[in-house]
């Protein structure tokens, strides 16, 4: 409701200054101030010297502006304390005092004096844990709330993308360029070694499915598919607000699952507007791939520039576009069976031409009605996407209903129900052997269009047509290696609240989140990994039920010291079921049915897990004079996953907020608001189900005989809960009547007793053991600046936020000093956690260097003039940024609004397997140097006595054998140079991840309602031009988008770029209106 009020207010304030002012019994104040004061009556001292009847005639005059005011009036009319009418050119608001507050006839003092507090001082209302709405001023922790506008201005298919650069302390990373990609949200750094560090999502008070799912790896074990995060099922058009609870204190009431923060999503309800309302939004977005590695188009297929073999996967071959004809991959055979040479020309658009323009159309219509007895909102949304990879896409339908009904004055029932269907005939794949890899790896002389008919004529369905037998035709991957899915999801809750007494309310609620995900992955005959085809069917079921109650007691106390308490409980039951059948050999081509599996090739997997957490919690709030607030929370969880005796854990939190400006009664023009806040909390966490005792898994059958192995990951029946302790302190201030707002937060969190699987020696009978260990510390700063640099005909509002998180591994365990979080590229890149280092560090082996003397630090080459690999793993980077800055701007001129959002991430690095692979095969521009004399190649004679001009010298020195060194003089060919320098030396393809993105832009024109009066029913028509990721600047300038550079294998590895789709920019238009 507040959101709408604020929207209204901001619209009002956009008018001429004169029109923004109103007069209330001699006091000049802005409409905004007035409205807010009316709403938060705690600030407004209604003291009158007249009787109630006289008050009715008291009016406020607002100069004419019926259009913008109408909305305000509509809203205000829903509030019993305000009456309004429109008379000719004037709007008249009449204030009716609420009976209880000023009983009729109560003699009261003199005329009304309205202070002019800043809007900050009044405090925005934010949704906090358990859905409790609180004024921002009494929170002892940093909290960020996004409005509907923030998420719907440039609606993102995955709404979590809208959080990027808007919330200090929060890192948002889309895991791919496709609009259906999952989004990783990390709040205040990675703190858990074994968990995914993703926040808990709570929709309308009910926790929902984990936001991130591991990518699905098809039967071939190479290509991976991201079926998207369940959180993306929520349509941006249905969101009323998103609150990010960052610290442990804010989230303490959500218990063990809130270790990585909580994101509270409140959906729109019908209560906002009296009467019947229909709203319609339509968006069209187009995605264009534009960030490609810098491919070379000068040299074709071959082993070296003079090579005879011009059918090679390497692009080290002869120079292109010289008028020559050479034998190529698609040379037809002459009558003697000899390949016919063809024009040796480059196809510079071979990569670009494969990707098409992606399209996303989103439509949403919502009907709402509010009456005295209740309200409802019914919304239907439809999203249709065609991906940039041919034959890929995503369709989504969502239907949501929310309703409230007042059974009588004290019993209210409400419900939120949502059904979402996501489906796709084919999702783009990532990782090794995906389309990206096959397209990027085409040599410059290959015409992508010549591959379009991907079957060998006459052998359709049996044999693919591909340039190199080692690689799949990218069109075959797109059209035949499909990864389809359907996800049907139902979420909902029913809630009843009872006003037992005016000061005592009881809420009971139960909520359900259920989805069924059916995946279907197909591989045709002649696919590289599955020459006889493959087929996988997988069904996942997820169910989570939360039932809770909350009893709130808010006594009416007439002293400045106020107390309120609440107590509640929650039971969470979670069930996850997976069922999969797969075959790596089909009997007949093109028949995708499990019955077509070759005899004995069918593999079944099944798993079922279940978990329960019971909780009780209590909240206490003490406030003094509305400027000093002490909030206490306590929660105890009992988790089924921990052993008896250790399965109960308690977590307390204390937070304090002091409005210093009120305490000291500061009434300066310069400083309108100053708040200090601090908190401490402790949060426990459990683990996954079945981590206490080992079981005996069956392995694959040996013919008709069963086999059973054992699990070498030793479980632990003595596990203890994890404990995170956190401190936070901050300042909120507002200067010059809210022209400058400032907030600063410092925090420190220590996660101890983490439940991790540490490696042991298999000689002990187990290769890993589950133990409690570690202390990971995250500390950091968050700064927010809200500026209004220009406030005249043009209003410019600018929000800047700064995030810096510093991670430190304080201890692991005495037995384990180095822990491998993961590895990639055949364990050549290792994510190691060592005491005193940071999470996110990655290590690899470097090359041997001269230790001392004049050549110290230079590469010590072997006798062939090549680099040699060192044995030790050394740190080469960390994938976390040093800091992040979000810069959000809003410019308004009359009916035109321009918004733009810039996301700047500084520091961090990533290793690119893609870069390495493309360099090794000579596909990118950075491999041109030295290829021929024109490119600086040295003249040399190779082992066969051929005189060549592609000689190069590896940087480094040679050992003279007597302890002295000399600069390298061993000439090698260009291909060997690049292969030696880049293939094994990962730091050479490790780049800085710094980037600046123009994340979102929208230019909106709001039509004048007067003009629209000619069209009955229609109102609030607005049209926007929108764009997202329009431009990305990267410090590495190598054609890779650092945000989406990651490895999507069986997990998501940050800091490593494996074959993912190229970076895209999206632009489009949005139309919204009400009826």
């Amino acid at each position, binding site marked *: 409701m507040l959101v709408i009020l604020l929207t209204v207010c901001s619209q009002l304030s956009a008018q001429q200054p004169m029109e923004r002012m109103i007069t209330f019994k001699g006091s000049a104040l802005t409409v905004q101030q007035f409205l807010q004061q009316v709403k938060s009556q705690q600030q407004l001292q209604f003291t009158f010297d007249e009787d109630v009847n006289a008050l009715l005639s008291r009016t406020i005059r607002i100069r004419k502006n019926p259009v913008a005011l109408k909305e305000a009036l509509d809203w205000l009319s829903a509030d019993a304390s305000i009456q309004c009418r429109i008379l000719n050119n004037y709007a008249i608001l009449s204030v009716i005092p609420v009976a209880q507050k000023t009983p009729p006839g109560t003699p009261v003092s003199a005329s009304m004096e309205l202070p002019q507090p800043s809007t900050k001082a009044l405090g925005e209302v934010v949704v906090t844990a358990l859905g409790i709405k609180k004024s921002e001023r009494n929170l002892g922790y940093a909290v960020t709330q996004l409005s509907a506008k923030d998420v719907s201005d440039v609606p993102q298919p995955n709404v979590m993308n809208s959080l990027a650069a808007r919330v200090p302390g929060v890192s948002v990373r889309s895991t791919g360029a496709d609009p259906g990609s999952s989004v990783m949200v990390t709040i205040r750094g990675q703190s858990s070694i074994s968990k995914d560090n993703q926040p808990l999502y709570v929709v309308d008070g009910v926790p929902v499915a984990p936001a991130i799912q591991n990518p699905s790896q098809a039967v071939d074990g190479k290509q991976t598919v991201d079926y998207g995060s369940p959180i993306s099922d929520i349509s941006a058009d249905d969101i009323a607000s998103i609150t990010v609870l960052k610290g442990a204190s804010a989230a303490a009431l959500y218990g063990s699952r809130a270790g990585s923060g909580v994101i509270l999503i409140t959906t729109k309800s019908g209560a906002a507007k009296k009467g019947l309302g229909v709203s319609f939004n339509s968006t069209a977005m187009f995605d264009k791939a534009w960030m490609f590695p810098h491919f070379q188009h000068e040299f074709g297929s071959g082993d070296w520039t003079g090579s005879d073999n011009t059918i090679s996967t390497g692009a080290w071959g002869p120079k292109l576009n010289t008028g020559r004809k050479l034998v190529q991959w698609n040379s037809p055979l002459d009558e003697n069976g000899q390949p016919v040479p063809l024009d040796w020309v480059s196809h510079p658009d071979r990569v670009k031409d494969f990707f098409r323009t992606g399209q996303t159309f989103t439509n949403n219509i919502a009907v709402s009605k509010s009456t005295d007895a209740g309200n409802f909102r019914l919304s239907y949304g439809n999203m249709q996407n065609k991906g940039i990879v041919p034959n890929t896409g995503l369709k989504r339908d969502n239907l949501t209903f929310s309703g409230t009904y007042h059974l009588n004055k004290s019993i209210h029932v409400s419900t939120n129900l949502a059904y979402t269907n996501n489906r796709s005939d084919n999702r783009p794949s990532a990782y090794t052997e995906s389309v990206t890899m096959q397209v990027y790896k085409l040599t410059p002389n290959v015409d992508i269009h010549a591959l379009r008919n991907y079957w060998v004529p006459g052998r359709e369905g049996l044999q693919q047509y591909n340039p190199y037998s080692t690689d799949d035709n990218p069109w075959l991957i797109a059209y035949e290696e499909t990864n389809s899915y359907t996800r049907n999801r139902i979420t909902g809750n029913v809630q009843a609240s009872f006003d037992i007494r005016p000061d005592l309310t009881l809420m009971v609620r139960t909520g359900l989140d259920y989805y069924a995900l059916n995946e279907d992955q197909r591989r045709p005959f002649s696919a590289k990994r599955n020459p006889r085809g493959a087929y996988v069917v997988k069904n996942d079921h997820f169910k989570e039920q939360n039932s809770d109650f909350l009893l709130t007691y808010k006594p009416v106390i007439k002293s400045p010291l106020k107390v309120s308490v609440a107590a509640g409980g929650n039971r969470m039951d979670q069930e996850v079921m997976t069922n999969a059948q797969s075959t790596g050999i089909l009997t007949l081509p093109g028949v995708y049915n499990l019955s077509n599996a070759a005899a004995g090739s069918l593999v079944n997997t099944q798993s079922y897990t279940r978990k329960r957490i*019971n909780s009780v919690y209590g909240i206490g709030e003490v406030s003094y004079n509305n400027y000093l607030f002490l909030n206490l929370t306590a929660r105890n969880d*009992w988790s089924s996953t921990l052993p008896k005796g250790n*399965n109960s854990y308690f977590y307390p939190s204390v937070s304090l907020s002091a409005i210093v400006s009120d305490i000291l009664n500061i009434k300066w023009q310069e400083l309108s608001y100053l708040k200090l806040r601090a908190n401490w909390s402790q949060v426990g966490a459990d683990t996954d189900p*079945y981590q206490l005792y080992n079981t005996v898994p069956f392995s694959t059958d040996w013919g008709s005989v069963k086999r059973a192995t054992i699990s070498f990951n030793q479980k632990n029946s003595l596990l203890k809960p994890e404990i995170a302790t956190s401190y936070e302190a901050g300042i909120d201030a507002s200067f010059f009547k809210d022209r400058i707002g400032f907030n600063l937060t410092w925090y420190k969190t220590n996660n101890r007793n983490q439940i991790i699987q540490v490696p042991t020696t298999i000689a*002990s*009978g187990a290769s890993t*053991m589950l133990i409690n260990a570690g202390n990971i510390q995250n500390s950091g700063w968050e700064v927010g600046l809200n500026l209004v640099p220009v406030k005249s005909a043009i209003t410019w509002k600018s929000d800047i936020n700064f995030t810096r998180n510093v991670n430190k591994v304080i201890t692991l365990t005495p037995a384990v000093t180095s822990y491998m979080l993961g590895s990639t590229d055949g364990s050549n890149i290792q994510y190691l956690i060592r005491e005193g280092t940071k999470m996110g560090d990655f290590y690899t082996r470097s090359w041997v260097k001269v230790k001392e003397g004049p050549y110290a630090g230079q590469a010590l080459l072997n006798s062939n003039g090549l680099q040699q690999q060192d044995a030790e793993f050394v740190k080469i980077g960390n994938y976390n940024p040093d800091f992040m800055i979000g810069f959000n701007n809003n410019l308004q001129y009359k009916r035109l609004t321009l918004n733009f959002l810039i996301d700047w991430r500084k520091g961090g690095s990533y290793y690119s397997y893609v870069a390495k692979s493309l360099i090794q095969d000579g596909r990118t521009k950075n491999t041109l140097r030295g290829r021929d004399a024109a490119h600086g190649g040295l003249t040399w004679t190779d082992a066969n006595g051929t005189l060549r001009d592609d000689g190069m010298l590896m940087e480094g020195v040679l050992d003279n054998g007597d302890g002295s060194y000399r600069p390298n003089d061993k000439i090698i060919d260009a291909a060997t140079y690049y292969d030696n320098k880049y293939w094994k030396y990962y730091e050479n393809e490790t780049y800085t991840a710094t980037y600046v993105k123009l994340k979102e832009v929208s230019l909106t024109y709001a039509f004048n309602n007067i003009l629209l009066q000619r069209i009955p029913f229609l109102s609030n028509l607005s049209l926007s031009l929108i764009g997202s990721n329009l431009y990305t600047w990267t410090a590495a300038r190598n054609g890779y988008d650092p945000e989406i550079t990651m490895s999507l294998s069986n997990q998501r590895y940050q800091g490593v770029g494996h074959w993912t789709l190229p970076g895209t920019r999206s632009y489009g238009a949005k139309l919204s209106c009400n009826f």
Partner: protein
Amino acid sequence: MKRANILYSLLTAITFTSCTKGFEDINTNPNSPSVTRPEYHLTEAVTQTAYAYAENGFTRRPAALGRYITLIRNNDYELFRWTSVDWSDIYQRAMVIKTMQQEGAATGQPAYVAAGNVLLAFNIAYLTDLYGDIPYSKALQSVENGNIKPTYDRQEDVYKSLLSLLKEANTQLMTAGNGLNASADAMFSGDALKWRKLANSLRLRMLLRCSKNYTTAFTEMQEILNNK
């Protein structure tokens, strides 16, 4: 006050009676059993041992090292770099065998203990031949007593220990060798005599290998030959 009392007792009831009720049931893994039958482990141990042995013989370590085969690539196997593949595989198989023996003992099927000793000796002997000194006497005890840092035994002691294990296995097989599930025994179809022959041949091979340093090697060989 009365109302508060009711609420309080309600809260207490919810809190303390049902907070952990049914937890053990909920947290019992339904996906795989906690104990199984020894014959399933026997098939696993026999087939995995055979596959690894055959693979090594044809395409990997000793074959490549001895240049019976050439891998051309100058890879680890040809450069005396064993890597940890066999190390891990053999200890894993040894642990499966140990689990089988425990299950056999617990269910009164001593034949599995006996056959297990033969398989264990086969695998551990191969391991010590590859790596020399290895953890043996204190190995595989993580589950029993939490020893995750087993000490190394000298190869000589491992050999001695395995020789007596094989001797013991022969005796066990003689007295209680019947009872192996014939279809689960992928190697000998439950024929105890064949297992005894394997135990004794293995012992002979080991004795032959250490005969230069093991004074009683030939006496023991004779003993085996006399064993009927």
